[in-house]
């Protein structure tokens, strides 16, 4: 068992100091410990932010719903204001992982968890993402890898909440102890051709403090496809949200970041999906530019089904999608 120092930050200043000193941040501790045990995360100094209760608040303003980064998935699933103002977020949080994990996993941790790629997670493979020279997925076991976003690394983003937050146009609030920064939904996650070593835009001294979700959704639907009805990471998901500005259709688990189906969004324009056939058309467009590899072509079909079902749900025809 790898030994490490375990510090608990008592206030944001303490957390900032620890991060500057090279400590690795822990929120719920689900993903980090896993990476530590398998030797993928080299850190031997961990700072827990679990004692910073200011990041556990949930607040509703006239414009948005503000959820602290340390709110657990269990709370997200149960909290009345989340259920009322962001029902998609509550539903996804409630269906993620196990009771043991939901009790500890946080909103921030869910968004910032590392990819589940088997090569990345195995100490036996020095892959591109870990500083090696090769992404093994291109030629190897690639059934669970990306169909959108190109390379050089073919991970899929593991978060179930992130696609929903991006579809809802949430802003991601960060801090470093002296300065707060707000990242727009479309500027928070990044693709592997922009940065290989991390999947988001936070600087090394920053942490996520909260997520603000505007109360502008007029129609919304979300579908996750877990073909074996159990295993934690869905093979495709889609969050579809319509505001006055039009549709945002965001695919999860099929690209290195929450993936916007822009062609489908553009085609839908301001249609309200009175006709179920529109959902089929949009779904086909959503996967038109997919680039599957040898073993993951099935994900194109799953992604298409997810988009169709999410749109039908948003359009008020959920039964059409489910039968």
């Amino acid at each position, binding site marked *: *068992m*790898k*030994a*490490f*120092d*375990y510090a*608990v930050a008592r206030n944001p200043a303490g957390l900032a100091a620890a991060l500057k000193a090279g400590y690795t941040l822990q929120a719920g*501790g*689900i993903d980090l*410990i*896993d990476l530590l*045990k*398998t030797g993928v995360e080299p850190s031997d100094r*961990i700072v*827990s932010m*679990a004692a910073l209760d200011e990041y556990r608040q949930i607040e509703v303003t006239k414009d948005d719903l503000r959820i602290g980064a340390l709110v657990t998935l269990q709370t997200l699933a149960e909290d009345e204001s989340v259920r009322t103002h962001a029902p998609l977020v509550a539903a996804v949080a409630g269906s993620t*992982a*196990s*009771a*043991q*994990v939901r*009790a*500890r996993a946080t909103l921030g941790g869910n968004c910032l968890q590392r990819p589940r790629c*088997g090569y990345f*997670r*195995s100490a*036996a493979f020095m892959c591109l993402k870990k500083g090696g020279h090769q992404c093994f997925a291109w030629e*190897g*076991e690639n*059934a669970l890898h990306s169909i959108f976003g190109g390379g050089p690394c073919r991970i899929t983003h593991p978060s179930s909440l992130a696609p929903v937050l991006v579809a809802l146009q949430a802003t991601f609030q960060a801090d470093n102890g002296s300065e707060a920064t707000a990242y727009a939904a479309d500027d928070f996650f990044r693709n592997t051709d922009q940065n290989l070593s991390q999947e988001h835009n936070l600087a090394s001294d920053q942490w996520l403090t909260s997520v603000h979700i505007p109360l502008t959704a007029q129609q919304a639907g979300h579908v996750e*496809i*877990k*073909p*074996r*009805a*159990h*295993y*934690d990471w869905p*093979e495709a998901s889609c969050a579809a949200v319509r505001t006055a500005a039009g549709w945002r259709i965001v695919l999860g688990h099929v690209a290195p970041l929450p993936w916007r189906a822009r062609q489908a969004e553009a085609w839908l324009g301001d249609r309200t999906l009175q006709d179920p056939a529109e959902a089929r058309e949009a779904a086909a467009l959503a996967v038109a530019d997919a680039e599957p590899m*040898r*073993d*993951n*072509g*099935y*994900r194109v*079909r*799953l992604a298409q*089904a997810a988009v169709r*079902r999410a749109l039908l749900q948003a359009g008020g025809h959920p039964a059409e999608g*489910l*039968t």
Partner: protein
Amino acid sequence: MSDLKLQVNGKWVELDVPQSRYLAEVLRYDLGLTGTKIGCNESECGICSVLVNGTPVNSCIYPAFKAQGAAIITIEGLEQDGRLHPLQQAFLDHGAVQCGFCTPGLIMTAKALLDEKAAAKQPVTEHDIKVALKDTYCRCTGYQSVINAILQASGQDVKPYIPKTKAPCQTIGHALPNPDSLAKITGRAMYTDDFVFPGMLYARTKRAGVPHARIRHIETAEAAALPGVRAVLTHADVPGRQNHGLVTVDWPVLCSDKVRYAGDAVAVVAADSEEIAAAALELIKVDYETLPVVDDPIQAGQPDAPIVHEERPDGNLLKHIKVRKGDMAAGFAAADVVVERTYRTPMTEQMFLEPECSIGVPRGYDPTAFGGTIDPAAQRGVQYRHDKTTIYCGTQIPYLDREQTAAALNVPPEQVRIVAALMGGGFGGKEDIAAQIHVALLAERTGRPVKMLYTRAESLLFHPKRHATIIRIKTGAKRDGRLTAVEAELYGDGGAYASLSEKVMTRATTHASGPYDVPHVKVDCYAMYTNNTPCGAFRGFGVTQSCFAVESNMDLVARELGLDPIAFRRINALDVGGTTCTGQVMRESVGLQECIAGVEADMRAHHTALGEAFRWSWSEGRKHYAWGIGIGYKNTGLGGGAPDKASAIVETGVTDGQVWAEVRTSSAEMGQGLPAVLAACAAEELGLPYGQVRVLLGDTDHCPDGGPTTASRQTYVSGNAARHAARTLRARLQQVVADHFGQPVEQWSFADGQFSANGTRAGLVEAIEWAQASGQPTWEEYEYWAPKTQPLGTGGDMHVAFGFGAQAALVEVDDDTGAIKVLKIVGAHDVGRAINPLTLEGQIEGGIIMCLGNALTEHFINEQGQAWTDVMARYKMPSIKHTPEIISRIIEHQTADGPYGAKGIGELSSIPTTPAIVNAIANAVGVRFCSVPVDQDALLLAWKAGETECLCGWGYEH
């Protein structure tokens, strides 16, 4: 080190522990609360679940300091004033505890659910249970008993699910909990890693990491110099035999000249702590000349293939196994229809939840020398002075561990003692030597106890798996449905060492024409060496693979002939008077027709209950439904001419006026319920209440040899040994009583625990006391020999008995995603006689769920000899969410020599499941899968492309 303050089970404790300690470690190793188990160490299996301030957490990844000041409840905290918690009682009642290793995790997770529901004043539903426990694995039960137990504990009136069986005797035939279940549900049960000996060291193994290489040099000086390291051993430190092996002695204790798979052991280290031992591994430098890798059994047979064992005469061929019956040309000439396909099955993993652990204790070890104490009454354990090299471990074959360890130590076997601890599952994966020899060597070198606990990654990398196979099978039949000929060719990937490949692939071969009376059969099987992880025993022992191929082909032939799949099977099913492909004429105990009829009745009953006619397949919207059937058989016992015997001792005594009996044999319990069988046999013969019989297993100094726990043989052989020992002892006691009264023994009889003759009576208490007073032993050892069998190729009885089974699966396939759900399994199994219907049903349900995984999810992936499946999360096995409704029928065609007519069930229940599910999928969507696990993604693509057969998965070119 820092101060940690916790309230554990109501008591405050303060500890000084490193900051990197996890809660599970603090509970187990610092507080001695070993009821909390660690299965995967990566929050995958859920069995380490404890409650922190009422919330269930995976304690293996929960830093202890995160729980600073919190209230923790563990399994040990559930009993109140000596009374079991309702969940504990319910798990006992329903037989929901088998090997017991996951039980604390299941119970703690269920407790959180029950507490939450009680607080909300809501009833608990089956759905709630499936959601709450979906990430808490159990590998022994089929979860049905777990669900029922939790429902009962929530206050609902749910009875244990026990199929109808023959009228019970006094004890035989009654549903009774395993004698060790109470210890398991309270957290008191001791598995190997639960022992902490005073002065104990911790060991780790340096593994090859490369699949095939010549060793140029091993440098250990730097590791040996690391402070805290007590010993570093290589091949040069093995005083005796350099290799071990169950059949062929080809597996190096520590590699010297080359490594043949990535899991090969090159050096072992013992140190003051596991951390130091792990650090020392990094300092051992091995200079390798890497060699080309062979990772496919067919490629292994090619002339240019890299050779795994250069010293062998036949290249990579481990064994060519043949079955010949009749005249193939005549058989196929007589056929109206011939179907030929090639099937593929991948390596699969036993995934017992307890990783391998061994503790070696040196000869002359005195715990008081390390601050420990001695208990004069102890016969083993941490307060016992050890007079010989002793190994504590979970093992399926204690006496062969002893023999192999002694050979490596270069001492007679009697100078080594194996003490079997409870085993957290085995399923065949704990038959080969793991670290037993290593810890013995390290203990003798350092003079201290040495523990070697494998990490899950190491366990996955190291131990033998189920063979990957390629099976070409050609089946011929006449228009009237009679099979005329079966020809098959099998390749089995044996991996780097022989393990049990020869035996496993022989079973695959001799079962390759199925449980049918086929006049002409020819089977050739090639077990091959490769640089993959060795393959060996795994529940089903080769028959899992060949049954899948046979039964898939049977459905294809039935379709060609236009026959109903069930009718077609019934025309050909073995019956008394039939002949197997090895030439064995069945004289008795063939309940196969009844099994098939029972399954058909239950399939029909499903539709009758819905008020509709039976149908094989139908669709509702985007969902497609169908039934599929599979039938199978499995030998009981070693067979093939191997001497098959087991010995047991039954001892009786009187304590405080009450008679007790103890059964002792080395045979292993790994969750299958053997102690219940042995105790029932002794209780029946001695007329004792079941609860007054104790069972001691696996201590080679106290238990006679019960032989390997494999081949579904223990109920038959050890059950018989216990039964005959008890019977012989009873006869002696009868003689004692007759002598006491000065009457001829023939006039005495025994019933209901009493001897009687001519109105005179004597109880067991008196009989035992009179025996003791007259200096006669009150124990008996019996060596039971199973009827003689014939080697393959010589005809005659190759096996003493076969278990038979039929299963049907009802599946649902989603049009949009290819997602497959198994909704229901109906099964009927001929077990000869149900000795204990409770533990029997556990074996049946567990076997079914395990092979639901084999059909749909399980695949141990090797890439070029490197294990890609190196964490539990990368091996998909069924969870409680996959559990279908299971309807079970017990068929009892007794076998003459079995105890009370019983034969084996351990493997049988898992065998027909795979083809039943795959056949159901073919019936539902029209796509036949010739490989498992059925790749739902490939299914979707093939189906949408209009294909009718799908050749993909392991072994296929992409």
